[in-house]
């Protein structure tokens, strides 16, 4: 059956697609960064608990206090790109979501459990004793499952040719595991999370923690996590590259100047970040890493459009030309960010002891 028969009609958008593309990319970058820290820190903490070494206590305690924040912001920064993706690619993502409905919906439950478990891990860290391993394990498992479900949906939405499977299974329990790129993609994101979490820990202990003699140790610890995981990340990246559909891989390996340039630049900078990490240059590594991540996210968007090219161009979308709501959003965002900045500054500076 011709896959184009299955693709639902695209609705008009209020302003040019470029706006949504920009918003989607900016907010997704924020989401990925926070999500990486969230997932990666959970994994790192769990590994430490499982190893059972008492000397990593300060690290895991520190993670436990911050983890609920990362979950809150990962969710908040996650809804924004999800919104813009639905605007630009709604006919694809709504469809793929329905095909795997049971799994997609379970994300809500998984995140609630992960979040609740993280708060228990946080607030009852001391009183739980060894039992705290259970709670961090629950959080980690739920988040890993969530990530896997997301990877399936984000790839299934790009593969209308596979949607026919609905007719044999309309009960929402389809996954995209037959697609060879799903596993390497998933592992690529998990590895990225561990790496970025390590980097975040290093940054935290390098710049935020004052008067702690043990801090330097955690800086190195975090950078080691970053460096070695990113090496694995490179291998996973190559696996991911080879598992992409042929016409997409071709684009990245010389077929298109833009695609190839971004890919090669990102990978190269990534390699440099490893060497800097091994030398414990926290600041430089962070900048290089961030650049790599941004380039890779942009590449991910280009890959998405390449997958969909036979069926759809984002620029095809009809524009209705209603600009006032956009203007209002930009103004609200600017004002909102100012207020948030004020609140954060006040929290940092106004710490009188209550009389």
């Amino acid at each position: 059956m011709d896959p184009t028969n299955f693709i639902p009609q695209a609705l008009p958008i209020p302003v040019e697609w470029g706006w949504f593309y920009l918003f989607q990319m900016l907010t997704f970058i924020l989401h990925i960064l926070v999500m990486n820290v969230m997932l990666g820190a959970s994994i790192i903490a769990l590994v430490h608990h499982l190893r059972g070494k008492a000397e990593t206590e300060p690290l895991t305690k520190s993670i436990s206090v911050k983890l609920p924040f990362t979950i809150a912001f990962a969710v908040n920064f996650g809804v924004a790109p999800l919104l813009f993706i639905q605007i630009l690619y709604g006919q694809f993502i709504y469809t793929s979501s329905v095909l795997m409905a049971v799994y997609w919906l379970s994300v809500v439950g998984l995140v609630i459990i992960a979040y609740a478990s993280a708060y228990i891990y946080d607030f009852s860290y001391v009183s739980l004793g060894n039992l705290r391993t259970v709670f961090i394990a629950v959080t980690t498992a739920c988040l890993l499952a969530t990530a896997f479900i997301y990877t399936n949906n984000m790839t299934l939405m790009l593969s209308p040719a596979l949607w026919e499977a609905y007719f044999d299974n309309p009960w929402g329990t389809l996954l995209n595991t037959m697609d060879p790129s799903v596993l390497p993609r998933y592992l690529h994101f998990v590895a990225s999370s561990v790496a970025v979490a390590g980097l975040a820990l290093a940054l935290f202990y390098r710049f935020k923690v004052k008067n702690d003699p043990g801090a330097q140790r955690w800086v190195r610890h975090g950078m080691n996590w970053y460096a070695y995981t990113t090496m694995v990340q490179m291998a996973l990246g190559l696996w991911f590259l080879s598992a992409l559909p042929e016409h997409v891989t071709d684009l990245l390996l010389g077929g298109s100047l833009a695609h190839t340039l971004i890919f090669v630049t990102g990978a190269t900078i990534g390699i440099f970040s490893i060497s800097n990490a091994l030398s414990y240059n926290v600041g430089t590594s962070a900048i290089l890493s961030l650049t790599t991540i941004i380039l890779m996210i942009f590449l991910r968007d280009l890959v998405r459009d390449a997958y969909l090219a036979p069926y759809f161009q984002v620029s095809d979308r009809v524009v209705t030309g209603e600009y006032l709501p956009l203007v209002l959003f930009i103004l609200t965002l600017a004002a909102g960010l100012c207020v948030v900045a004020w609140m954060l500054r006040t929290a940092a500076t106004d710490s009188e002891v209550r009389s």
Partner: protein
Amino acid sequence: MNFPIWELHWAGGGLLIALIAVFHVYIAHFAVGGGLFLVLTEHLGYRRNSPAILDYTKRHTKFFLLVTMVLGGITGVGIWFIISLVAPAATSQLIHTFVFAWAIEWVFFLGEIVALFIYFYTFGKMGARNHLTIGWLYFFFGWMSLFMINGIIGFMLTPGDWLTTRDFWDGFFNPTFWPSLAFRTFIALILAGLYGFVTATWEKDPQTRESLVRYCATWLLAPFAFLLLSGWWYVSVLPENAQAMVLGANPEIAPYLQGFLWISAVLFAGGLLMAVRMPAAIKRPMALVLLVIGLLYMGCFETVREAGRRPYLIHGYMYSNAILAGTEDAISAEGYLQTSGWHRNREITPENARDAGREIFRGQCAACHSIGGPLHDIKRLSAHYGTVGLEAQIAGMGKIYSYMPRFAGTAQERKALAAYIVHDLVGDPEVTQQTRPRPELDLEIPAFDAQDDEYVLLAWCTLGEKCISDSDSRFSMLPPGSTLMAQLIRRGPLPELVTEDVEVTFTAPAGFENPSNHVEFWKYAPSLVGKELAPNVSAKGLGMSGVMTPNDQNLTFLADGIPVLPYMDDGTVNPYPVFTIEAKDKASGEILATTKVVAPISTEIGCKNCHSGTWRHEGAMGISVTTASDVLARHDRRHKTELLPQAEAGKPVLCQSCHPDPLLKAEGDPALLNLPAAIHGFHANYLSGAPDAEPCHTCHPTGPDSYTYCARGTHASKGLTCVNCHGTLEDHALSLLKAEKEAGKPKADLLMRHLKPRLVASVEEIEPRKPWNDQPDCLSCHVDFEPPQDAEPSAFNQWVRGPEGLYRMRTDDAGLMCESCHGSTHAEYPAVNAFHPDLDAIQPLQYQGHPGPIGSRDNCAVCHTEDMFYEFHHLNILGER
């Protein structure tokens, strides 16, 4: 706009949305009200210089943080997920229309999270003024989130001018925006108090506990009046049909609205009670119970709001099943399977019909109907229909009652859908036509001596098709009472109609004398017709045998109101009892002439085809108690009557006690539609679009598949059907309804709205008619009494304004009633009867040896004793056949 459908069975019909959404909304409104609660309580703590209040506020903030962040925030995303899964088309429409409203809301969400974290973690560390500012900012962001989402939710119910302008602002600031915002704000404040009870009752110090609980009670109680006022405001701006449904037109919504009002009282009382000094051991569980009641409260409100929007997701624009309003006719023309995606079957064949039915169900019905689950279980709702009834229900839904959309699909798709539901879901087997075998009847044609007999006695039943409703314990609309007429002719070259000095009697056939043994009409007569009746005597005073009343004006004999029924004492069901008519000389008692005549009578009214139950007399006829009860139950539900409980208490009524009807000369309630207009007008909406006379046969036993098979006259033999004279069901109903509309009756329009005439181009061309009295006329086709010229003759829309001038009331130029020579309506000579070929030809066979009209085939001698050459009775009487 065609997405795949997540096939849910038990959890279908919107259950998942309801559970996730009500849960989220309960917490989210608490988050808004609670935000104000926190900052005002902190403020109170500073003002009273009370560490106890500040401690409580901090403790409550932790509770608040955990509940709203973990449960509230994520379930909010959960609603988004579930609506995308269960209603992707509507979600996509909302997202594409209101993307920036959501984007703005996201900014507020971000601000909320930051503010709340800071508020909690710096509680007691940050200076009072800044901390309060953070608190106020939290409340501001929270309320603004409500502001944004309120616009979108309101849009779904009242899109307002957006329907024509497609303008963002028209859609966002829609008709219910402000009342809904007010309503939700007040609920949020009430919930702040309700949740506050939980943390307040856990306060250890009794003194502090009491004052805090009272403080929370104020939050709970103070906004109630404003809540109810804004609720009234909200309802008052609803669109007409939504408002009607919410306020009681939809029986399903009623319990939720009542629940809301009752729980308002319970919560208010609960709040007052909590203010009373009681030990913590009582107050803590009370607080939790009230919290649960609050959840039910929220559930009632949101259910009323969602159900009031039926059958739309976006009112006036998109139905719950993603079909766009106004496209039903186009889809029905081309076919649902052709015009929507994600179906394996495009054309329906006998092999794939069941699977096609499943796909149609999934596409059009599953959005609201679960299979075996708690929400609108299709199995429960369809249990009693059978395929005929369910096809009718599918055809008619959405036409009169607006809580469902119209079915969009071809007749074949409708059939496939009904078959799938009845056979695969409900599990009823295929029903084969089973008719009781008709009894063997004996018939002896009375003797006639053409040479010597002095008189010809002609007799007929005025109506060739007559039904009785034998559902008396529940209702009656056609009480027993058949009419026989006779004319006595003294034979000769100049025959004479005789009424003086003659007595004509009618005698019931053996076995038919005791109708009151077979039906409950006589038992319930006081309730049905307002007086006690002797057994076997009709309301008009006639028994099963008696003397016919002479009429010197039109020279006839009349027995009006013979309560004959098709039930014999030995159990036989025979709708054609043969009465004996005898003319006697009054003085001498000598029998002048004898004949026999059929008094056709049936109870084969097909209500059971849709209203569940089986025939009262198996395989044959009769309205069973199950069927009759279902009819009343539906009438009560829709029209807020009490007919079923009344009947069950032993007081059934005549339908004509409310509905005017010329048949029984009933005036009823003049504001209501007359009974024929009501019944045909209503049911036509469900039985329309069917070929020819098929819908007629659904209720009337006129078709070849019926037991009675009463369409048996010469017209029927020539292949004419009900439609040739009366029009299709739609035409027939419209002619009755148009008269009612012109008489100013409000309900006529509602029933007419979706009926389209088929024999004329438009409703404007329909000639209105009064039931029973305005009828088609023979001469419309038989111009000058000639055979009709048209291949497909039609007498529709050319009414005789009767009752004078109707076929059954008219005479020829000699004073002979038309029916005396030509037979009853629908059984015109030559007629063929399925029970015995001669039953409807007794007098023609008696007097002239062949079943045609009396005197036909040059048999003028029957009355004239010799041949005639002048066309006196009517034109073309001697014409070539």
